[in-house]
């Protein structure tokens, strides 16, 4: 597998792990592209919890410009953020 393919496989796995986490926490089915803020699923407390969860689970630090709404809209965008921060 090329580096790009490995990265996208990782990203898919992270996204899957995040949809499981979201399902567990929010008690509803969450698709990888569901917009958590637009649907009102995420409140501010949960957003903060998400940041801490991502940092602890994937060993990254999310600060400054990375704390943008777009990075937290969905499981897929969070997976993209984690992958980028890890590389």
């Amino acid at each position, binding site marked *: 597998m090329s580096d790009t393919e490995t990265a996208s496989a990782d990203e898919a796995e992270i996204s899957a792990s995040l949809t499981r986490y979201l399902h567990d926490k929010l008690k509803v089915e969450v698709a990888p592209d569901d917009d958590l803020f637009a649907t009102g699923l995420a409140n*501010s*407390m949960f*957003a*903060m*919890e998400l940041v801490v969860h991502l940092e*602890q689970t994937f060993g990254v630090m999310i600060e*400054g*410009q990375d704390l943008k*709404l777009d990075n937290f809209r969905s499981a897929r965008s969070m997976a993209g953020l984690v992958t980028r921060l890890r590389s």
Partner: protein
Amino acid sequence: MSTGVTEETGERALIAGLVGDRPGVWDLAGEIPTAVLRELGRQGLLCAQVPERYTGRGYTSERNGELTAYVGSLCSSLRSVMTSQGMAAWTVQRLADAGQRQAYLPLLTGGKLAAVAFSETEAGSDLSAIGTRITEGGDEVVVDGAKVWVTGASYADLVLVVGRCTDGAGVVVVPADAPGVRIEKVADPLGCRAAGHASVRLDSVRLPSSALLGGGGQPLPLLVTTALAYGRMSVAWGCVGILRACLDAVTEHARTRYQSGRPLAEHQLVVRHLAELLVAEQSATRVSEHASRCWDGGAPDQVTATVLAKYLSSVHAVRGAASAVQVLASAGATDGHVVARAYRDAKLMEIIEGSSEICQLILGQHALSR
């Protein structure tokens, strides 16, 4: 281990030396001498969790918590200034880019004083109603808005202003002397009278875009929750301090004051107050410790644990301070007295950084979502 204890004794001696017996005088005057604040700032004690690489003390949340409780036991006004400075530093740590962290954090551990401006006349508990605008254009940002009840603002060199950006929200670091900034002290606040509460008006304040932390565009709820998380932790520990001061004052009084030929400590109804104060102080300490340990361990539960600690500690502080005034009676019923200050200061702690009712809503939702 012994080094830690020595250091702790050293910093407490330093604080005790700077504070002395003056909190009562500061309370009556509504002012702490700026030299005291700057010296504590230069020692890194107002925001002790700033990492060492930014010339901070690098304390854990738990160690900073014990320090906060100590300062809170002496003077809640000073502790409130400490809460503001720590919240400013934490906000920079979290939201700023690397260059901004390097620029601002050493100022905050070097004697400059900072405040964080959230509330507006129409946006108190509901910060989603914030109307302050941050307009980005080219290499500058323009800030317009009016903030109220900004703790520490009358002393501040820098005010971190929360506002709306084109996309999402942002925090701008505004020098207090920038053209278009007007800071006006709140006249006669109920409690924490010397904490420098002020309103901050911003009329077309133009700043270089480097003043907008992390380039802005962060989600408002996330940004507010991030900053408030530190503030709530600090208030929780500050209330532990209030309870410790009350417990000390009440036990001392109960031992030495005689009524009907016996010390107060032999009157059962007085002893009940003592027992309840002890339970309050211990409960507040334990929940604050737990929240700090969650924070230090990076547990996602820290968010809820912090709200719970803030809620429980402030509610206990309000009740504990009331019973302390009750036991000391005429001996403690003058402004400036430690229990009189505790009585007024504790009530404000039940209001700021998320009122008790807001905390109850958050905790109730948490209970439902488990």
